[in-house]
């Protein structure tokens, strides 16, 4: 229960940020952090709680983003319905891929590579279909009305994102206190042992895929409506996949607050790096890549694990 109060407290504070932050720059900073936290938490459901490391989460992101864009541009479907479709398709594609890979027992590194390969396939395909706009990309017409899920004010975009992120975090909170969550973590820690006491690992992993795909797809919808432009590289390229996994790894895998912590830390580091070395192309990615290497080497529990680890170390005599 304590966790829930902290979570609701944080989100209550986040909800009123637009009233206190008048500069677009700072509101945008918080918005981007929240967006990274949403991507990270979605990945965390599958990777952190389920132990299945995906290298191709841009796939679900891209499917969500293209869903809302294509339905809107080609068929005139309202983007609010597109929001539902984006989440749904993200989820369905995730389950489909999970079905294929888990059915044939792919684990560990192979799972990572297959998800990456699927993302590449989608990138190439969307590059050559006319109705996705092919290589030129797809442009959503500017129409700043709430009914078209486009807003004049940044704070309205912010609240939309806030709501999606809150639902995502509440879902993850409930993982910590549900049968499904317990089974998911059991599968992560030892699939055979979980099977022996009645856990259907296949179904459990598929459900995790469904949830992870759902929220990543919603993040994709938000991106499309916020920036009103997509191309295959943005949607299915490696950048989103890397961001999705980096955030929870930095903040703490398989923890509720890890993605929030990781997103904030990365955003701050990214800004500081920009201040110090300027806005040269690629430099912030150098910083993020270095952070990833160092985290995995020295802090596999993420910065969220720092407090816990030092207490443990004291008890264990530094072992």
């Amino acid at each position, binding site marked *: 229960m304590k966790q829930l109060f902290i979570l609701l407290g944080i989100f209550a504070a986040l909800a009123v940020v637009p009233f206190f932050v008048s500069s677009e720059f700072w509101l945008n900073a918080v918005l981007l952090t929240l967006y990274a936290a949403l991507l990270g938490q979605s990945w965390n459901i599958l990777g952190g709680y389920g132990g299945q490391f995906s290298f191709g989460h841009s796939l679900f992101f891209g499917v969500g983003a293209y869903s809302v864009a294509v339905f809107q541009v080609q068929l005139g479907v309202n983007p609010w319905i597109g929001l539902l479709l984006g989440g749904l398709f993200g989820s369905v594609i995730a389950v489909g891929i999970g079905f294929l890979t888990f059915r044939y027992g792919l684990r560990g590194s*192979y799972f990572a*590579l297959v998800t990456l390969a699927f993302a*590449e396939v989608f990138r*190439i395909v969307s590059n050559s279909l006319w109705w996705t706009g092919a290589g030129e990309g797809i442009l959503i017409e500017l129409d700043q009305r709430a009914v078209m899920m486009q807003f004049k004010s940044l704070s309205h975009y912010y609240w939309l994102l806030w709501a999606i992120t809150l639902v995502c975090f509440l879902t993850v909170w409930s993982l910590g206190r549900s049968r499904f969550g317990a089974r998911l973590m059991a599968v992560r820690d030892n699939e055979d042992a979980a099977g022996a006491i009645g856990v259907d690992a296949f179904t459990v992993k598929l459900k995790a895929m469904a949830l992870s795909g759902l929220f990543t797809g919603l993040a994709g919808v938000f991106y499309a409506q916020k920036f009103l432009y997509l191309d295959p590289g943005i949607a299915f390229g490696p950048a989103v996949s*890397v961001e999705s996994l980096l955030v929870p790894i930095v903040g703490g895998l398989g923890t509720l607050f890890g993605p929030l912590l990781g997103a904030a830390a990365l955003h701050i580091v990214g800004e500081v790096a920009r201040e110090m070395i300027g806005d040269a192309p690629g430099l912030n*990615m150098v910083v993020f890549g270095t952070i990833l290497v160092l985290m995995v080497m020295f802090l596999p529990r993420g910065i969220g694990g720092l407090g816990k680890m030092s207490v443990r170390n004291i008890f264990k005599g530094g072992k």
Partner: protein
Amino acid sequence: MNSAILLPSILNGTTTGALYALVALGLTLIYGVLHIINFAHGALLMVALYGVYFLYKLFGIDPYVSLLIVPPLMFCIGYVLQRLVITRASHGRDENILLVTLGLSIVIENLALFFFKSDTQVVDTPYGFEVVEIFGAFLPYPKIIAFVGALVTAGALWLFMERTDLGRSIRALAKERKGAQLVGINVPHVFAMSFGIGVGVLGIAACLLMPSYYVSPQVGQGFVLIAFTVVVLGGMGSFGGALIGGLIIGVVEAVGGLVLGESLGQIGIFAVFILILLFRPQGLLGHKV
């Protein structure tokens, strides 16, 4: 389909496939011994390609002469990377190695982007555009040299593993880690040697690739999944498998491009990758354990 276009396209695919095989040889060696997947393989290839490019640009050293310089340098890079970074990262989980090598590839590629910009560079050797006609296919000399080079390299690696003491230690280690330790093999050293050799082979690949190819900071990305595909197709850790796998992939890509068009042709590669991993993860030539 008309055999007058099919045959040349298969031949072209074969020579491209030999290049893929070259890149995959190092990857399969590393996987076969250390049982880790080196995601930075493409980025390291890019480093080697820039090495070849700058040796030519700044000192006028021919890419084929660079065979004496770049592979040893790449070996050293690989050795040091393995000892300093990769061993410390696993914490008992394969995925961690994947993550660390992903991180390395991000760092290396973006450093290259920062220093060299995203421009594409080529070396303009006098022989770069000389072609031979075989069965209606116009094959550039460099591609034929690369084809022969891939065969020689695979053969040399095989001989090295079979005939030298280090090769035997590597194989022993690949099979039985604890046993190898007991008979006095210096495990960290041999691991790092394997990784170094795997990366060194990338140096050879770069020297043979450069005259008929180009280099840019992102050039490695395209090779990562292709090399993995070749490795899983041929069976993890098998040199002969990598060679055959490379040729198959080259042909699949060329013929796929012919049928589906240039941009969709690559889908064939990933389709092969996914299907092999799903239905025959031990590879076409591997045995089920």
